């Protein structure tokens, strides 16, 4: 008999389709009588469909160890002054 904790950790590979068949049977059996774990499953179940929207090549590019070191892109210097100017203009128009 598996605990909820063990089952939940397996739910990731369960929805991703990577779980091995024996363990899948165990998870199914647990889910049949555990509403809490079914709820956890429901919260993850839609995710593979979202992953499907990204093509494999793009996913590989993103996961490559040397892929885009997460440098935050900074907006150009004009953006903030321009924004402030626009807010001032809007105020003027609505007064």
């Amino acid at each position, binding site marked *: 008999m598996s605990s909820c904790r063990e089952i939940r*950790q397996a739910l*990731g590979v369960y*929805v991703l389709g990577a779980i091995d068949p024996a363990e899948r049977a165990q998870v199914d059996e647990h889910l049949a009588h555990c509403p809490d774990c079914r709820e956890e499953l429901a919260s993850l179940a839609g995710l593979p469909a979202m992953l499907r929207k990204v*093509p494999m090549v793009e996913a590989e590019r*993103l996961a490559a*160890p040397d892929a885009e070191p997460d440098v935050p892109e900074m*907006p150009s210097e004009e953006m903030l002054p321009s924004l402030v100017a626009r807010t001032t203009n809007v105020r003027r128009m609505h007064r």
Partner: protein
Amino acid sequence: MGTRREPEAGRRRIKGVARQKATGNSRQAQRVSDEELVRALYAEHAAALLRFTLRMTDGDRQRAEDIVQETLLRAWLHPEAIAERPARPWLFAVARNLAVDAHRARKARPQEVGEGALNLVPVPDEADRVLESWAVADALSALRPDHRQVLLETYYRGRSVAEASAVLGIPAGTVKSRAFYALRALRLALEERGLAP
């Protein structure tokens, strides 16, 4: 509360400014709080929005920045939309809609005939589909590298737990827990971008 992370602090600051803006009674106070609000919005969200819009515009910096600016201006115009909840889903949704509109407007422009006869066929869902794909890619890029890696091996490459464990050089139990936490993180990142699975 001193241990809260930065974004929380920023959110509280924006809420405070938004409230001030709503109740400000002198013109001077109004002007100052307007500027404060727009600066706070910029400081907290401009970089994240730009990363997102650069992807949506396929790297077109000018268009990406225009969308960011328009999005922040709308947030400033509608402080109530982001006052009592996390701002990011609303901001990303606005940015995405602006990108979709801009994309359609470009497609509809008759002088852009270079892309061929396909442009004559209206395919409104195509832009949505492409932009959604970019939004999900953006969410993936926000995950920890080990989370992306485990999703790549299990979902995209279709490896079993045992195979992924061998390829990644980590125990099978770690593959499982990592996949679980990767999906949870993905879910959050998607929600943050206004994409509920």
